[in-house]
């Protein structure tokens, strides 16, 4: 469905996409993840032919992208990061207008607009102007405008940003339904728990490159750390830290609530060796759980913890 190979995009000295490569199969949700400025939106804009790129190849539906290929465009839906609505058109008219850019048949369009309104549950608000809608409702309208024509391939660029948990959950369920209806979705977000729940595969980007991609299990298996231990110690934080620092193969120690999360450098680390060590050091624990790294752990491991611009 999507084939992106070695795409390079430069803005003068800045390389926005650095030999970026990824593929997406029909009917899957691909999470395009990465810190701010890593090139996610640039990648989407290149796939949509909005941006030129310096080298590499992008194919959608098996055909190279071309800004004049309306047959390909007709099969694509776009939900941009920013709200792209008309203030002077009401909910129904906004959806109808953008749907009309793809579907000229009036009867069919009317049916599609109704379906889109039901899909984002905006029926009560169909005659409302966008400025009368809450942030979450505007986001839902923004999605409806991009998917009303029922495209096969949908680009959703941070659609849930700045919405409440209820609206977010509603949107996530809606996106799952789109996949069930046969759509392929490229999804960018900063909410990694959301991506973990929603996406079939993930592409983690940093500095314009794809630094890792695969299913969550594949990413977990590819990590140097097998996982982390969650331990509840009886001793004070200072005492525990002083002891754990002596253990050579620990890469990270985090304290959350009453628990310590300990990550090891090597996946070959034996739990029995570590338990023997803390026993010898005189630490007492009340609870111990072994955890696989979350998408967030993997993301931070790959992209680092330092703050980005």
């Amino acid at each position: 469905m999507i084939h992106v190979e070695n795409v390079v995009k430069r803005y003068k000295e800045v390389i926005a996409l650095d030999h970026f490569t990824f593929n997406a199969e029909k009917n899957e949700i691909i999470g395009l993840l990465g810190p701010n400025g890593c090139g996610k939106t640039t990648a989407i804009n290149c796939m949509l032919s909005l941006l030129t790129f310096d080298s590499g190849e992008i194919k959608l539906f098996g055909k190279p992208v071309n800004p004049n290929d309306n047959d390909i465009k007709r099969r694509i839906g776009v939900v941009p990061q920013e709200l792209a609505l008309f203030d002077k058109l009401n909910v129904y008219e906004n959806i109808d207008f953008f749907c009309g850019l793809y579907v000229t048949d009036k009867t069919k369009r009317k049916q599609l607009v109704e379906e889109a309104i039901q899909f984002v549950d905006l029926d009560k608000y169909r005659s409302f102007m966008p400025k009368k809608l809450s942030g979450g409702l505007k986001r839902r309208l923004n999605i409806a405008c991009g998917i009303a024509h029922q495209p096969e391939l949908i680009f959703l660029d941070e659609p849930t940003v700045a919405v409440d948990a209820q609206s977010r959950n509603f949107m996530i369920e809606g996106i799952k339904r789109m996949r069930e209806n046969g759509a392929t979705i490229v999804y960018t977000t900063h909410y990694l728990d959301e991506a973990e729940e929603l996406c079939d595969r993930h592409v983690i980007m940093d500095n314009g490159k794809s630094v890792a991609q695969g299913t969550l299990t594949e990413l977990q298996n590819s990590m140097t750390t097998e996982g982390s231990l969650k331990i509840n110690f009886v001793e004070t934080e200072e005492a525990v830290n002083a002891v754990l620092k002596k253990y050579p193969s620990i890469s990270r120690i985090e304290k959350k609530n009453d628990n310590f999360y300990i990550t090891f450098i090597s996946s070959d680390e034996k739990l029995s060796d570590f338990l023997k060590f803390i026993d010898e050091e005189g630490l007492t624990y009340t609870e111990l759980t072994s955890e696989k790294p979350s998408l967030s752990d993997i993301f931070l491991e790959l992209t680092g913890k330092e703050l980005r611009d």
Partner: protein
Amino acid sequence: MELFRLAIITLKINARDFGFWFWMVIYPLLLATMFVITTQNITGSDSLDDITIGVEDENNYYTILSEIEILEVEILNKEEARTALENEEITAFIDTDGDMIVASSGLDETIVSSIVNNIHQVIESDVGFQHYDFEQSYVDTQDYSAHPEVVMFFSLLGMLSFYSLFSVMEFLTKLQPNLSHQGARFYASPTNKSQILISNVMASVFMGLLANGMLIIFLMIVYQGALFDQLFTTLLLILVGNITGAGLGLILGVLPVKNEGFKTTIGILVTLFFAFSGGLAGPFLRQAVIENFPLLHRFNPIGQLTDTMYQINYMANYDNYLPTIILLLIIFVISVIIAIVALRGQQYDSL
């Protein structure tokens, strides 16, 4: 069919925009009302009170001047005249040789000067005074200086014709991904961009005509139709003016500036400049432009529109009608070419 759907949506967007109603309807009507009020003072009856002038004793002009209705003539010697002029008791003094002396310049002085010049011409032409009827007007048309408000009204109509540029500019800015959020949606869609543009131009021209129509109706009510002797051909000119305005909107729309306020300011300044130099600031500035910057006047679209509207309605003169339409259409075509060239690069280097 799609053209009309898009045009109707543009009409809806404009009709719900207060900015449209203010700039296209309220603002021109306010200006027109202001012109009506202020220019009434220029041509009103107050300024046509009798003008008192002095003539030298035994002056040959006395008889003629005394017959003119608006003049009140006193016989004064030069000394008395000087004092009377200084005290503003008389407007002008005409000596035995027909030379006119004034203490200041103004409308009354201009009227007296014009009469005295007429008398000079009669004398030079050797026609006996007894054969000259000063009440009879042989000139069929009236001149600009006699009707300054007329030039201003036509200029206002000309300026308003060009206001179609704002709607086109705003929509075209929204059409481009590097200038607006909606632009990404437009460019990612299979819709023909020129179709969207044409529909927007159609809608904007229609809205422009509507706004012009309201102003014309207002002026027809105020002047009982006196301004528009040739209404149909005037409307045709206004239609072409709106089309040209839409063309200028295309150029402003493709300017790579995100700030719509900045583009609107440019639009307002350009139209105001053309309108002011074309007659909106009164016939005197217009005359100064014609004398000092003839090329500017020749290619000032609003100035030409103003002149032609005046000429066809007040002088039944169609000499400039076709050239003005051609000039406006040339500006439109050039604008479209510039916009299309700018829009042809449908992919962007950066967004």
